[in-house]
């Protein structure tokens, strides 16, 4: 509501500011900018301080309300610890807003709730007044500023630039946030478990004591089997995705008629758009039993129902469109002159593709594959649903392995006690995951960029 009023006021300020400037201009004043900019200027003065006030008020209002309400409560309640006080307040607020409560008949609480409501109403009223006054004052100030000396356009544009720059900083903030959120916890983990054990230990068994007297209650945090498992599944995925993706891209870019291309490309992209949880469901319920039946039919024994193969296959299929669309881009970026040169020498189309187009596009394709690898490593839902939890150190794709992402999910939602190293190791794994993908991504991006420059 208040926001709406501010919006209306801002619009009015804009119109008034503009017309005022227009009048001045008509009267022969040499204004620096177009009237419209004076309108914007006034609008900014109207809205920004008011909104700022509103935000600050709204943010601090609960605290004031709380303190004021707490004062109405009996002393023994007031001296309760913070958490309990919050609960009481929650109850009071529930009463006040007419929500479902259990203590509605408690007169003391009722009184507090009334007090709370009164204060809240007063506060809202005051807030409205203050904000409106601020916005009107702002508007007046803005209107006064209209004149020859004000370079409205510069001001407005500078304000806009500030907003734009602020927005583009969010990406940096996100990265910083990620690093901070995983780094501290990881450091705490490495204080308890030496990094060398984490990085080179061959035994992963993070079940530190479900009960205190449990064996191996110290847990062992050798991350090698997890990373090996991740690599195994990713490798299987890439074995599926690279040939299929690349060949699809080649076919679409070089052979397919434009009609086929127009249909096949969006269809392939659907494959990329299917949520990973759907793939996970499909992998667990359809592909994994199929893989097991097939291999046991052929005479393999001990095919895990959650074989790395099943998860890897499905993940590979998920990544096909990723590889194909990136490769398609780089293949079509190879200049036609290259193809002409080769065809003109009497090469067949496939020879041209194999010997000229692909080598020329290779850096770009490698970049695409690296990005795909990083995606495979970070993929979560498919492996959570279809891969195992057993940290086997194996290269047999028919066995169950576990991955970094699976471990993060199970460690943070698992059944074991949630103390010390175990939660922390999830963050350490997250950090490793972030660093690994970061390195892959940066290499891939540099490679791709270099490649693009080559033909631009």
């Amino acid at each position, binding site marked *: 509501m208040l926001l709406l009023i501010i919006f209306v006021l801002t619009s009015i300020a804009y119109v008034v500011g503009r017309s005022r400037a227009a009048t001045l201009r008509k009267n022969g004043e040499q204004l620096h900018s177009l009237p419209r900019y004076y309108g914007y200027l006034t609008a900014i003065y109207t809205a920004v301080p008011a909104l700022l006030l509103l935000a600050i008020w709204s943010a601090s209002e609960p605290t004031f309300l709380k303190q004021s309400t707490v004062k109405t409560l009996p002393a023994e309640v007031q001296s309760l610890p913070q958490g309990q006080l919050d609960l009481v307040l929650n109850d009071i607020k529930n009463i006040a807003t007419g929500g479902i409560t259990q203590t509605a008949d408690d007169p003391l609480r009722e009184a507090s709730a009334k007090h709370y409501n009164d204060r809240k109403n007063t506060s809202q009223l005051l807030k409205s007044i203050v904000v409106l006054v601020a916005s009107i004052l702002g508007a007046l100030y803005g209107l006064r500023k209209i004149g020859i000396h004000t370079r409205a*356009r510069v001001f407005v*544009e500078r304000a806009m630039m500030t*907003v734009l720059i602020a*927005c*583009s900083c*969010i*990406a*940096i903030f*996100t*990265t910083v*946030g990620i690093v*901070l*959120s*995983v780094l501290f916890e990881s450091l705490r983990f490495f204080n308890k478990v030496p990094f060398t054990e984490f990085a080179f230990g061959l035994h992963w068994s993070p079940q530190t004591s479900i009960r205190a007297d449990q064996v191996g209650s110290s847990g062992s945090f050798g991350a090698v089997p997890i990373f090996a498992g991740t690599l195994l599944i990713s490798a299987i995925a890439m074995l599926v995705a690279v*040939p299929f993706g*690349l*060949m*699809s891209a080649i*076919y*679409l870019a*070089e*052979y397919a008629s434009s009609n086929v291309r127009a249909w*096949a490309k*969006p269809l*392939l992209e*659907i*494959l990329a*758009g*299917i*949520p*990973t*949880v*759907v793939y*996970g*469901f*499909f992998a667990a*319920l359809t592909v994994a039993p199929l893989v097991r039946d097939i291999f046991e039919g052929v005479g393999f024994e001990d095919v895990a129902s959650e074989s790395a193969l099943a998860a890897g296959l499905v993940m590979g299929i998920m990544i*096909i469109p990723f590889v194909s669309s990136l490769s398609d881009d780089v293949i079509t970026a190879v200049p036609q002159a290259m193809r002409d040169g080769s065809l003109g020498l*009497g090469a*067949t*189309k*496939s020879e041209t593709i*194999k010997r000229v187009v692909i080598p020329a596009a290779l850096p770009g394709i490698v970049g695409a594959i690296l990005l795909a690898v990083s*995606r495979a*490593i*970070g*993929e*979560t*839902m498919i492996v*959570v*649903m279809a891969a195992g939890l057993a940290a086997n150190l194996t290269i047999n794709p028919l066995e169950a392995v576990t991955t970094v992402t699976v471990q*993060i999910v199970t460690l*943070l939602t698992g059944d074991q006690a949630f103390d010390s190293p175990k939660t922390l190791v*999830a*963050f350490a794994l997250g950090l490793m995951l*972030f660093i690994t993908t*970061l390195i892959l*991504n*940066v290499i891939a*991006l540099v490679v791709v960029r270099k490649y693009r420059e080559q033909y631009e």
Partner: protein
Amino acid sequence: MNAQEKLNTTEVVRGSLKRRYAREKRFRLFGLAAITASLTFLAVLLITITVRGLPAFKQTFIQLEVTLDSKTLGVGENPDINELRKANYNGAIKKSLTALFPDVKKRKDKKALYKLVSKGGQYDLQKRVMADPSLIGETLKVWLPVGDDTNSYIQGNIDSSLPEKKRRFKDNQIQWVDQLTEDKQIQRRFNSTFFERGDSREPEMAGIKGSLFGSMLTLMVTLLLSFPVAVATAIYLEEFAPKNRWTDIIEVNINNLAAVPSIVFGLLGLAIFINFFSLPRSAPIVGGLVLSLMTLPTIIISARAALKSVPPSIRDAALGVGASKLQVVFHHVLPLAMPGILTGTIIGMAQALGETAPLLMIGMVAFIVDVPTSLTDPATVLPVQIYQWADLPEKGFVEKTSAAIMVLLAFLIVMNAVAVYLRRKFERKW
């Protein structure tokens, strides 16, 4: 070069042609096979899920004559709303079942008989009575949903030729159901429950409305936060940013963020929004915040591509007539790039809609029955609902899961189709 040599060349080339053409054909076939295989897989996936999920859109109902006398219900005269809520509707249903099959005497058999009707049936009755308390004392003919096993029997998923030990639906139950079917007291209808209710532990009562609303609220937050910020960032980087180290860092950052595993964003959300700012767990607002950080790079990258595709000549033209740089961008470049930006946004949103992993970290894996109405209400989202259902022991949830997947895919395909359409429609060659 003499004639002999030339002849040689021709001969040599001609001799190898057959082999080379075979290779050419093979290569081409590989390509075709690759793309066909990918598309076949897509088809297999969609068909499997449709075949599994389609039955879930139908629900079996059983017609019962239920007497709502106050004694069975255990309510007094003029019961208040709480009494009505707690009344023993199940008892009434059980009574009417026993009335239908008076021969059933043994306790075990009775239990089997009661299993024909869904546990949710009582809530249907409850709703009706609460809406109209005067029904108490009346005898009603009502259609109630059947239990999970009965439903799968009627769907033909239980093979009655198997020995009794090997199926969950026993001989006497089959006999009862067959008799009811003959009496036309069993009907298959469109499963409106699936779209009208929140989660439930009884597969026949479970619906996706709660998670659908959760998804919408979450997406709304995502869209409102990520779209303006992404467009602003793209404009700054593409049109204004000086080429220096700082902007280079931002750029590498964005490209990298686009490829950071989504679960890492979940860890970020857990550490920052929940632990540091103590925002509520399982809330759409937190989900939206995390997802918007995740989709931001996607939208930025496509928005930049769209801005870049606007030819410099247009900027020069506008600058030439004395527009400021900002005016050029907002009056000319941005409108021209808008279809491209929208396409990218839709694709980013589709990605966010299907995302599960980061939400697992911030408490959205929860059993939530009530449909969320505000941004801080506990909520779950469609993909997480799918994940949860996939893990439940009740057989009926397999088809429910597939049905929920169908709904999710329908949304995603529509979104992608719109994106493709937009892209085609506004594709411009400058």
